[in-house]
C-alpha cells in the first residue's frame, strides 16, 4: 500500500488539491487524513467535500483539535486559533458536522497507528516536538503492539527513531528522499501541514508511506498560496491567516 499521509489541511483547498495531485503522481493507493481538516482557512466545506468523498473510497480520517473546537466539544478556549471556530461551524452542512463529530481519535492498522497529536492520550492534544514526547507516544503505541506512529499537529516534518540502545532521537528529513523504516525499530513521523506550513517556507507538506517497502518520503509541494490567501481575505477572516501562508509562519 502506498499511503498518502495528510495532516493539518486547515481549510486550505488549494494546498490540498496540489498535494492530492502530487500523491496521485507518486502512485498513492490510499489516503490518511491526520486531523485539523478545518480552522484558519477559507474553504472548510470544499475541503470536507473532498475528504468525505475519499473517505467513501476507503481513506482513513482521524480527529484533530480544530474539529473539536468547531463542534464546540472542547471547553471554551481563549485562544486566537479557535476564534474562527464559530465561523467554520457556520460554513458546514449538517452532514459535514455529523462527519466531524463521528471521527475517531486514532486509527490502528496492522503495525502502525494514525493520530493527530500523540498516541499517548490523544485527547490532550500534546505536541510531539522533541524526543521525550515522541518516546511517550511510541510507548503508548507499543502497548498496542504497534511499531510505527504517524501524526501531525506540530506543522513540522520530523522523524523520530529508536537508536541502537533504545533511546528515541529526532531526525530532520530531506524532502523527496525515501527513508527506510524497518519494523525491527520503532518510528514516529510528524508529516507536516498541508495547509499551513510554519517552517518559513510556503510549500505544502505531506508524506508518502510505502507499507510494502517500508519507506517514508517527506514531500514539499508548491501551490497557489496567493489564491488561498485571497480566499481568506474575501471570507472576512483575519488578515494574518492570509499573510502567514506566503512566509510559512
Amino acid at each position, binding site marked *: 500500500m502506498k499511503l498518502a499521509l495528510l495532516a493539518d489541511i486547515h481549510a486550505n483547498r488549494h494546498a490540498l488539491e496540489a498535494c492530492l495531485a502530487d500523491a496521485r503522481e507518486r502512485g498513492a493507493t490510499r489516503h490518511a487524513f491526520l486531523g485539523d481538516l478545518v480552522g484558519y482557512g477559507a474553504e472548510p466545506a470544499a475541503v470536507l467535500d473532498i475528504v468525505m468523498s475519499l473517505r467513501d473510497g476507503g481513506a482513513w480520517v482521524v480527529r484533530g483539535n480544530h474539529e473539536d473546537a468547531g463542534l464546540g466539544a472542547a471547553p471554551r478556549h481563549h485562544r486566537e486559533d479557535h476564534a474562527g471556530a464559530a465561523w467554520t461551524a457556520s460554513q458546514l452542512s449538517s452532514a459535514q458536522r455529523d462527519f466531524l463529530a463521528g471521527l475517531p481519535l486514532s486509527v490502528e492498522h496492522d503495525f502502525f497507528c494514525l493520530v493527530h497529536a500523540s498516541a499517548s492520550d490523544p485527547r490532550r492534544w500534546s505536541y510531539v516536538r522533541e524526543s521525550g514526547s515522541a518516546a511517550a507516544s511510541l510507548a503508548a503505541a507499543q502497548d498496542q503492539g504497534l511499531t510505527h506512529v504517524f501524526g501531525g499537529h506540530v506543522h513540522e516534518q520530523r522523524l523520530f527513531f529508536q537508536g*541502537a540502545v533504545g533511546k528515541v532521537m529526532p531526525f530532520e528529513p530531506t524532502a523527496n528522499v525515501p527513508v527506510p523504516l524497518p519494523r525491527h525499530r520503532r518510528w514516529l513521523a510528524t508529516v507536516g501541514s498541508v495547509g499551513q506550513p510554519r517552517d518559513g517556507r510556503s510549500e505544502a507538506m505531506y508524506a508518502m508511506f510505502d507499507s510494502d517497502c517500508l519507506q517514508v518520503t517527506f514531500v514539499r509541494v508548491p501551490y497557489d498560496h496567493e489564491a488561498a490567501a485571497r480566499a481568506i481575505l474575501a471570507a472576512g477572516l483575519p488578515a494574518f491567516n492570509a499573510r502567514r501562508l506566503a512566509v510559512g509562519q
Partner: protein
Amino acid sequence: MKLLEPGTEIDGFVIGDCLHAGGMAHIYLVRYAREGHDPGFPMAMKVPRMTAGDGAETIVGFEVEHQLLQVLSGPHVPRFVAAGDLVRVPYLVMEHVPGRPLQAWLDDAARTGERPGAAAIAGLGAALALAAHSLHQQDAVHLDIKPGNVMIRPEGRAVLLDFGLSWHAHYPDLLAEGMRVAIGSPPWIAPEQVVGVRGDPRSDVFAIGVVLYEMATGELPFGDPQTAGGLRQRLWMDPAPPRLRAPRTPAWLQEIILRCLEPEAAHRYASAAHLAFDLSHPQQVHVGERGERTRRTSVRVHLKRWLRAAGMHYEPSPLPSRQIEQVPIVMVAVPWRDASDATLYSLRRAASRSLGIRPGARLACVTVIGPGDTDPVDAQRSEVEVHRRHLDALRRWAQGVDLEGHQASYHVLEASDVAAALVHYARANHVGLMILGAATHGLKLQRLTAAVPIRVAVEAPCSVMLVKQKLPFSQLDHTPLPPGEEAGEPDEPAPRRYRPSSLYMGPLE
C-alpha cells in the same frame, strides 16, 4: 558462526573462497547461481557474524552499511548488488574491488624497514582524499578511514570500504545516541568524534592525516589508546612532528600532515579537495613553522590547551555537501598573450569578489602557454626560465587580490589546446568555480581560439564565470576611473591599488 562451505547457495548466490574472516563479518567471493548471469565485475558477499536476533545494537553497523551502499555512487565506493533479509539471513553482496589494500604499503614498509618516499605517500594520500571528497559531495562522511578500509585500484584510484560507522545526512543516524560517546577506531578517530559529534567531513581529513603520518614515520601519531582519557588526548595534544621521528620527511609533507591533525576542525583543511590539492602540488605548499618544527610542543602549551579542551565545544555540522561547497577551489585563468590591463583588472575584481563571499576558499591562478613558447636550446626561453617568468607575472597579478584568509597557488600549464588544458586542470583538482575572461586567450590572434571560453563553459565540470572587461583598454589608459565607480562596493580593494604599469603581463617575447 562457522564458515560457509564453498558451493553453498544463498538467495541465488554461490559461495566461493573466503576472502576474510574477521571478528565482525566473513567475506566470500560469490557468483550468481543462474547460468549466464554476469554483473560484469567480481562480487563479494559480506556476512555479519550476528543476526538481528542477537540484539538490536550489534546489527546496527550492518544496517548502516546497507543503507549507504544503496545510495552512494561513483568509482570510490564498491558497487552494490543485493542484501539479504536482516532477520532471516543478513548479508550484503557488492563489487569485489580489485587492487591492493592501503595497509599493504604499511606492511611492506614494516617488513623491509624502508618508508615509502614522500612522492608515493602524497600520491596515495591524494587518491584517498579525492575518494573522501567524492563521499562528502554525496552528503556522507565515512568516519572510519584507516589503511584497512581503503583499496587502491590498479589504475591508482582509491576505493573506500566498510561503511558500518558512516554517517549520511539524508538518513537517521542509527549510531548517534544523543549523548557523547566516541564511535570509531581509536588510532584514527577525530577529536570531535571523541566527544560524540558525527557528520563533519573534516573528521575524515583528520583520519587521512593519521594515515599519512603512519606512512611517513611508521608510527601512529596518538598511539592506539584504549581508554576514554587516552582518546581525549587528541583534543589538546600535538603529536610528535613527523620530522622528529623520520628526519627524511620533507617540510611540505609535515606541514600537510600536521594541518590535517589540528585538534580544531576549523584549523584543518576546509575540505578533502583542498588536501588533495596540496598533496598534488607539493611545491605550492606554504610551509610555515608547523612544517619545519622538529620539537614536541612544550608541556606548558599543552597544559593550557588541556584546560581549554575541558570546555571545548564542537558544533554539529550542516549538510556536508553544502559545507564543502562553501570552501571551493576557485581557479582563475589568467591570460598573458594579448591581454589588456582592463581584462586583467576585471579578472582581479571578479576573483576578489568571489573569494570575498567564500571565506576559506582557495585560489589557484593558472596560465596556459603553448609548447612553442619554450626552447631547450635558448637559455632565455628554457622551460625553467619561461615558467619562472610566468609564475612571477601570476604573483604580480594576484597582488591586487585580497587574499586574507585564503590560500593561493600559481600554476603554468603547457598545452596547445588551451580550453582542454583548463578543463582538465579543473577536473583533476576538483575546482568548484572557474573564472576566465569572456574574450581572452588570444582572441585577437586567431579567430579560432575565440571559442575557448565557450568550450570551457560547456565542458568544465564546475561553474564558470565569464568576466567581461570593464572598460576598453584605450579609455582606461587615458582616463582615471570614474568617480563613484567603487562607491557602491565598499568591499572592493581601493582604486589606488590599480597601477597599470606594474601589472603589465604582455607577451614575453
